[in-house]
């Protein structure tokens, strides 16, 4: 029983990171129809910013904050430099642009720093664990889950209580009319990328803290999972992205924990098969986006 609860905590903590990344992808997709494969590189940028700050003996809290801010700036800069010129282009062109941005950033880190992982040393208390009687939970899991919940609360506040946040939800439905009522398109798009960047930055902090190192390819794997999560939840649907993220995390952790050794190498194949099965039953995802596609 305690092993099962232990796995539940792990699943929620991993699923939470996927949920934040998936939300970042969904926020941008819902507005500019861009599936941003360079989202993982925003994580990588944040990871290296944290590494650089810690190497320069900046305090841990400041380094983490810096990582998140750098991720936000990187995401907004990506939009200005690469995606703004492509606004209104078809989904394929946007997708290829994001692959290009992703490759360029990877190569820059490989050649500029190192292709090999660099270590991140966090204070020892963060890698400890807390004993709840019958249940032992790692401090990192507690932090992850808390941070994910806080991020979701803040995002909900922005989307329902601020003008630009409400405009973002409206833009996911009908962008031209948002402009007709006088709201600047560039502001809405910039906010979407900023939010997406902050979510990637927060995910990067949690990811790096659990792994203890940063490398040029660190963002690729989690963002691929997050992409699967957004499709599973319903592409462009924000609540769908969160649900999808947790679903992917739960499937991954439980297969890892309970599959017999002989089939363990097929873990990814089995988890993707489960997701394909869900999509066969619900082709628009678990919680489809409500936007009406006008052409």
């Amino acid at each position: 029983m305690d092993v099962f609860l232990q796995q539940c905590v792990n699943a929620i903590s991993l699923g939470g990171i996927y949920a934040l990344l998936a939300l970042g992808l969904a926020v941008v997709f819902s507005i500019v129809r861009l599936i941003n494969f360079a989202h993982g590189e925003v994580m990588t940028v944040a990871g290296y910013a944290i590494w650089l700050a810690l190497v320069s003996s900046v305090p841990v809290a400041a380094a983490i904050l810096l990582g998140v801010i750098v991720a936000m700036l990187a995401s907004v800069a990506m939009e200005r430099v690469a995606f703004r010129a492509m606004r209104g282009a078809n989904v394929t062109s946007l997708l290829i642009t994001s692959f290009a941005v992703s490759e360029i950033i990877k190569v820059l880190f490989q050649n500029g720093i190192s292709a090999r992982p660099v270590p991140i040393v966090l204070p020892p208390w963060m890698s400890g664990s807390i004993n709840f009687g019958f249940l032992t939970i790692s401090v990192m899991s507690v932090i992850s889950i808390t941070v994910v919940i806080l991020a979701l609360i803040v995002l909900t506040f922005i989307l329902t209580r601020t003008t630009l946040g409400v405009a973002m939800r409206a833009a996911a439905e009908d962008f031209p009319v948002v402009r007709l009522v006088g709201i600047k398109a560039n502001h809405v798009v910039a906010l979407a990328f900023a939010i997406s960047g902050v979510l990637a930055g927060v995910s990067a902090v949690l990811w790096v803290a659990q792994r203890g190192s940063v490398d040029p390819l660190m963002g690729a794997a989690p963002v691929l999972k997050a992409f699967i999560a957004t499709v599973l939840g319903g592409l462009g649907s924000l609540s769908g992205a969160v649900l999808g993220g947790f679903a992917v995390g739960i499937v991954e952790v439980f297969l890892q924990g309970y599959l017999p050794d002989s089939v363990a190498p097929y873990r990814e194949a089995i988890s993707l098969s489960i997701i394909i099965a869900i999509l066969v039953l619900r082709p628009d995802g678990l919680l489809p986006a409500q936007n009406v596609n006008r052409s």
Partner: protein
Amino acid sequence: MLAVENLVMRYGPVEALRGISFNVRQGEIVALLGANGAGKSTTLAAIAGLLKPTSGTVTYHGRPVSGLPPETLSRQGISLVPEGRRIFASLSVAENLWLGGASHATAEERRIRQNQLEERFPILRERTRQKAGLLSGGEQQMLAIARALMSKPKLLLLDEPSLGLAPQMVERVFDLITTLRDEGITILLVEQNVPMSLAIADHGVVLANGRVAMAGTGVELARNSKITETYLAA
């Protein structure tokens, strides 16, 4: 107030507008009439900044405005109620109104304006927390107009406001348009209901195949029997 001169709009080989010109004077209702595909909605979209004209000019209060983005034109007092209403269905009624005035007023002014509009459209107050997509067609039209009025427009562009509404609702919409004109808002109205439009319009412009086929006062056009022929000939 608004002068459209020689407006041309081309989509590839298709010429939607082939050089149309007309004026809208301050305080007037001008009805833009014509068969489906005559270019009425295209004209409104070009004035509101949703479409960039191929050539020709739009002058508003003496300044050229063609090619400006819709958000700038909205801030200068031009407000379009688009065809098919296009309210934000997944947002609440209150959020729709909020966005309507978001770029034009402080939070306090917005609250006052929303109150005034809710007095005019009591149904919007009753449904304030409801998702706008759950309103009936007529209520959605009221919301679309109220959303446009949140910005206190000087020039209101209405694209087929009575389309698909019950007869009783159609009458309410036309009454409302007259009231708004009397309150000082200049109105450019695109409509398929020709008799009712000409009855309230100060001037009318009839489009056919992307050109101005006829123009005159509402009374003149209403008396002219040829208008029905021109209008019905697609």
